[in-house]
């Protein structure tokens, strides 16, 4: 009987073919180049191979400490980061705002300084306020910051896992004329873009990879500059997307349909007349998907409101890649933790 066994780490170098990056933080995808995104996706492929092994453990980040600092409830993102860190042998410490010193009024900045002083290598932060990770990145000089979702602003790891999933499902398809590429695909993002950090980061990500992005949803839930209404100057982001409020038209020829979570409180805040009308106009249904390209995939960042933004049978049907998104999320986060932690100066 074996009392001990060594952890086999075959092909570590093969799994991580990417040069260490000079990047210190992952705050959004707006400062990623196409090349860097491609590198991360490549790297995540190696990580996904590790996740498929019997013994899901490599010593890449042994002796490194990752803190997940979450000021908002989360299941998948938090567990995904924790698993990613642990598979890479980092010590992962989870901290949530409830039950911590933040309940005694400690500021975000002081909490960050305290964690930094403990010698932590990477802080993964989620916060309800847009820009919170930027405050930490600006003020803390010894840690890497990964944005796990800030307010309405960005969720870069979600966007990267979405890109990975699309590349995995469609990019390598034999009939894709662009080869291993997301370029030229039509991506339709449906729902509450105004309040969606997932949408914002995906717009950067898919645009940089050359996809065509169409947003569809109620005008009340679109940023005003994207709607091109009024006299507001259009953002760079707005120039990268088209808006088609009629979902049936938007979905024509789509390769990817991404439904966003509809916060039910939006109805009470007056953005919507009723959930009933929303469902009628913007629910992703099998009927509507018949207008998309054959082989269309349906995505959702979760958690889903089945029966509202997405019908039950689409969520669990053949076009859905929602569970694969979750699996790929772990691989993407492994790739990012590895790239940031094993960088110059570390």
């Amino acid at each position, binding site marked *: 009987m074996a009392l001990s066994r060594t952890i086999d780490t075959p092909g570590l170098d093969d799994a991580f073919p990417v040069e260490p990056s000079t990047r210190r*933080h992952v*705050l*959004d995808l*707006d*400062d990623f180049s196409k090349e860097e995104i491609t590198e991360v996706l490549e790297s995540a492929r190696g990580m996904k191979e590790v996740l498929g092994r019997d013994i899901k453990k490599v010593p890449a980040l042994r002796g490194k400490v990752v803190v997940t600092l979450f000021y908002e409830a989360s299941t998948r993102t938090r567990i995904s980061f924790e698993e990613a860190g642990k598979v890479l042998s980092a010590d992962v410490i989870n901290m949530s705002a409830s039950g911590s010193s933040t309940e005694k009024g400690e*500021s*975000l*900045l002081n909490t960050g300084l305290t964690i930094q002083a403990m010698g932590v290598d990477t802080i993964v932060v989620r*916060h309800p*306020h*847009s*820009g*919170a990770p*930027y*405050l930490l*990145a*600006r*003020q803390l000089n010894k840690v890497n910051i990964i944005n796990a979702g*800030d*307010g*309405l*602003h*960005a969720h870069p790891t979600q966007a990267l896992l979405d890109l990975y999933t699309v590349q995995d499902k469609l990019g390598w398809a034999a009939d894709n004329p662009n080869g291993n590429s997301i370029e030229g695909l039509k991506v339709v993002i449906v729902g509450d873009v105004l309040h969606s*950090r997932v949408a*914002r980061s995906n717009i950067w990500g898919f645009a940089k990879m050359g996809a065509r992005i169409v947003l569809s949803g109620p005008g009340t839930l679109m*940023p*005003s*500059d*994207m709607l091109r209404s*009024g*006299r*507001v*100057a*259009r*953002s*760079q*982001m*707005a120039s990268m997307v088209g808006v088609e409020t009629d979902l049936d038209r938007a979905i024509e020829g789509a390769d990817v349909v991404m439904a966003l979570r509809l916060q039910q409180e939006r109805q009470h805040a007056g953005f919507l007349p009723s959930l009933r009308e929303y469902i009628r106009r913007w629910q992703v249904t099998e009927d509507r998907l018949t207008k998309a390209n054959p082989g269309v995939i349906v995505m959702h960042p979760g958690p889903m409101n089945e029966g509202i933004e997405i019908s039950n049978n689409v969520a669990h049907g053949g076009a859905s890649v929602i569970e694969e998104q979750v699996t790929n999320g772990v691989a993407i986060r492994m790739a990012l933790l590895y790239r940031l932690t094993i960088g110059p100066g570390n």
Partner: protein
Amino acid sequence: METQSIFIRHARIIDPSRQLDRVGDLLLGGGEILAAGRLGVDRIPDGAIVINGLGLVASPGFIDLHCHLREPGFEYKETIAAGSRAGAKGGFTTLCCMPNTDPPIDNAAVVDYIRQRARQDSLIRILSIGCVTKGRKGLELAEMEELANAGVVAFSDDGDPVYDANLMRLALTYSSDLGLPISNHCQDRSLSCNGVMAEGSVATHLGLDGIPAAAEEAMIARDIALAESTGGRLHVAHLSTAGSVPLVREAKERGLPVTAEVCPHHLTITDQWVLGGKGEPRASAGSLAYDTATKVYPPLRAQRDVDALIQGLADGVIDCIATDHAPHDITSKQVTYQDAAFGISVLETALGSLLQLVHGKKLSMGALVDRLTNGPAKVLGESYADLASMQPGTAADVVLFDPEEDWTVDTSEFESKGRNTPLEGTKLKGRVVATFSGGNMVYQGPGLRFEESRARV
């Protein structure tokens, strides 16, 4: 105490109240302006301090209709003492302080307290603005006549609008025989909601809740209609949108008693600054984004708004420049953008910022000085006309500035307790050399050049 006579030689003297703009000499003595013009060395009194004014502009001291001195109640953000030093350093000799203090300036006792503190602590003239409503709560009118008798120069609930339209109507009606304007912070909160910056491209990029221009314009339009129907005097505080300018223009063309002010930051910087690149175009946010020093109400807006405000100021549609100096402690700003306090510390950078408009040929030097002196004095009314005049016999409130001096904003050198400015580290051109209040030199900058005092034989 007898103040020493001061003789400024060869300065460009600009006194917009008398359409005066010429190189000459200026003699201050006994707290008053004694003479201005081509005086010559023979007029230098015995023992006078003689200043070389060559290349400098001498004008009436600046008047700020809108600043926050935070006292009483928020002395950790600013005091009358520090605010007055900051004002003097910025060339201001009159500051009108807003009543969002604790307690607010809604009764004569607080006005008296500020007057007393100013007498002890201030280098320059401090005037109070009284509340429109009791406790600034927007529910019932403050005792406006008592406040007027105590010496307030205007009414405002600044920081908050007078939100209820009928209450604003009543306030304009009630104050119409007091002769003082109501300075309203125009913000329709049902439109601004939780907004923290201007609606538009940068807000979309950063995922920050935007404040539509209509939030300001809707309330200005409302207030103009109310001023017209009541005969009350309306002063529109801190205009920030292109659409606000024609509203004020049209009201003035109809002869309504409406005036307006604009802040230095709304004339010089845009919402691009929230991206952290000091206004340089940026493709990505970068870790300097969400600079909370840029968080101000009304918010920084787009270049087209800035351009329209400059045009409105040049045309005279906007009567004056007011700083909305809003100093804050560091912890109020070292938080997320959403949690950060609104406001910029402006007094010490105002002139340097504004001179960009003159150097960029968007505004004449005479117009700039007018909007900092004569413009605000006119809003205050006839009895304050002397504050903006260099007529012999008026108080010697004078600023001397070098429009060409290059300097870099360094908040560690601020006199104000508020170091909250997005201009930290920015290069500006033009700075105050000396400020005189009642004939006393209350600020002396590094650029001041003295000449030998010549005794007449």
